[in-house]
């Protein structure tokens, strides 16, 4: 709550609220400027203002962050490229002629050709789809699994908590990349975007689960939960309608932060030859195949790698902005 108050004081400044309210007899005493004392924020709080929710607060703070707008513009661009790659490139990324082997860039083919004679620019454009799809879907599923497990553990407590906490510990102890390498071996060449998504979400839900458990435990002893219980609302309904909506902010922050990590994970798996099959254009594979010509044609590696880094950067900046907006404890610049 203190955050609301100080924000209200910040945005309007002391000028709006002249100290005329103070009794005249006490004017010869020292008064600190309302902005200098924490209590000043309470004094200047305007009760007639409609109460602001966490979301409207977050939005108003997001709106003022340049980082957020840069991230949004980049993210939108990348999503449009992923949805409609045809708009950006007329060449077919899978149509390769060996006669074009390592040809230099020319009009219509700004990035030149790779070892197989494929148009590098169109492969970079079409590669966005795999990365973005895997990133978004894996984040969605991992967050769902993590929220269900974490919320159940935190809300019901007791033996449910003990069992789920051990389960979380077990998955926490196995590095995601190693588990993914071993499991992807099962799919071999039959891997699809969906199997990569499933494998990542099955092993990467732990962080969300831990955060969700803590957030739910923090909310469940609040007075309004006691009130709901006293009114005879069922426990499950309380969890769904009262506890979860109030615990969802840290979950969203963790999920957004992980999105970039999942994109990197997919690229790493494809790079190791254990991710997407060659029938799907992906940056990880292109980086891996460009590596053979690194000494003579480093540009072949830098185009897909640059696209990958730019995508991850966009999502990480988005995660940073969302965290700053939603986390009351985050230090503001």
């Amino acid at each position, binding site marked *: 709550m203190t955050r609301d108050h100080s924000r209200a004081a910040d945005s309007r400044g002391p000028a709006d609220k002249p100290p005329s309210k103070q009794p005249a007899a006490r004017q010869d005493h020292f008064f600190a400027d309302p902005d200098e004392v924490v209590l000043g924020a309470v004094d200047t709080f305007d009760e007639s203002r409609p109460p602001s929710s966490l979301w409207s607060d977050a939005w108003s703070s997001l709106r003022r962050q340049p980082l957020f707008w840069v991230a949004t513009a980049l993210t939108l661009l990348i999503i449009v490229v992923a949805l409609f790659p045809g708009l950006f490139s007329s060449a077919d990324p899978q149509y390769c002629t060996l006669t074009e082997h390592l040809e230099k860039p020319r009009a219509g083919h700004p990035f030149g050709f790779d070892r197989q004679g494929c148009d590098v620019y169109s492969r970079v454009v079409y590669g966005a789809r795999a990365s973005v799809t895997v990133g978004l879907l894996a984040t969605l599923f991992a967050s769902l699994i993590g929220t269900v497990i974490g919320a159940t553990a935190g809300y019901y407590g007791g033996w449910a908590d003990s069992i789920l906490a051990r389960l979380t510990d077990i998955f926490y102890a196995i*590095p995601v990349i190693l588990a993914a390498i071993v499991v992807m071996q099962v799919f071999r060449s039959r891997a699809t975007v969906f199997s990569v998504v499933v494998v990542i979400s099955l092993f990467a839900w732990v962080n969300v689960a831990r955060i969700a458990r803590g957030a739910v435990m923090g909310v469940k002893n609040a007075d309004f939960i006691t009130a709901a219980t006293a009114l005879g609302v069922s426990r499950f309904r309380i969890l769904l309608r009262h506890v979860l909506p109030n615990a969802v902010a840290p979950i969203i922050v963790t999920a957004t932060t992980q999105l*970039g990590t999942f994109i990197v994970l997919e690229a790493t798996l494809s790079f190791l030859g254990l991710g997407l099959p060659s029938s799907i254009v992906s940056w990880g594979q292109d980086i891996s195949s460009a590596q053979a010509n690194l000494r003579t044609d480093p540009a072949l590696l830098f185009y897909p790698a640059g696209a990958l880094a730019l995508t991850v950067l966009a999502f990480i900046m988005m995660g940073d902005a969302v965290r700053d907006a939603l986390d009351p404890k985050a230090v503001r610049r």
Partner: protein
Amino acid sequence: MAKYLGKRLLQLIPVFFGATLLIYALVFLMPGDPIAALGGDRGLNEEVAARIRAERHLDQPFLIQYLYYIKGIFTLDLGTTLNARPVLEVVANAYPVTVKLALMALAIEAVMGVATGLIAGLRKGGVFDSTFLVVSLVVIAVPTFVMGYVLQFFIGVKLGWLPPTAGTDPGFKSLLMPACALAAVSYAYVLRLTRVSVFETSTADFVRTATAKGLTRHRVVSHHILRNSLIPVVTFLGADLGALMGGAVVTEGVFNIHGVGHALLQAIRQMEPSAVVSLVTVLVMVYMLSNLLVDLLYAALDPRIRYDS
């Protein structure tokens, strides 16, 4: 303290069995029949195949196989690979290099991250701070294997300062560049954690008190701010050691280092379930123990934290 340690070690037991069971199950799911493949095109005599399966308990149900494996761990008899090499030898050959690589990366990220994070946190909003925030964003966005290739190309090939690949039994110099590539992403996290933590601590009342009683700035920073800011950083570093050893799979591929990652990928390709399970199990144990070590370090950093209560 002893009681706390005992409790924590007891808690590790179910995690250990759960994690090994999970890994064993995953490897069990791996496709292909390595025994049938031993015979090559001609195929294997039924009798011989059955004997090899019985020797390796492959004819038993899954859980029995797992129990045999656990027994093997406790008697330090991890069995042999299909070409009769003791698995223990495979593990013992692969680990030293990866441990060296991971520890070097950990040292790099800890020293660099805390140093730059401290300066950035003390002068929050300044030029240094802003520059390194941008650097950390870019470093996080570049995946480890891309970072590896970029370093390899510029420092190894173009400038020729360090050897571009490591090969067998690499020394400090040839591991320096791989360690930097491996440490890069975590360095950015250490920098950001330290920065926020230092900033929060430097506004605390006890720091003002320390300054007010006339301590030098140097002493305030080193004894009051830094020490109290380190807990989240140490937590991260402890959890990161395991992650670094896991992430070494990729770095080792780029720089051709024959460590755990190399051995693991080879074992997977050659369908050697026993080697895969053992390599991953040791990693999981390193991970669990380094997390425990971190929890014990808390008391050294913050005397208010006590373990007996």
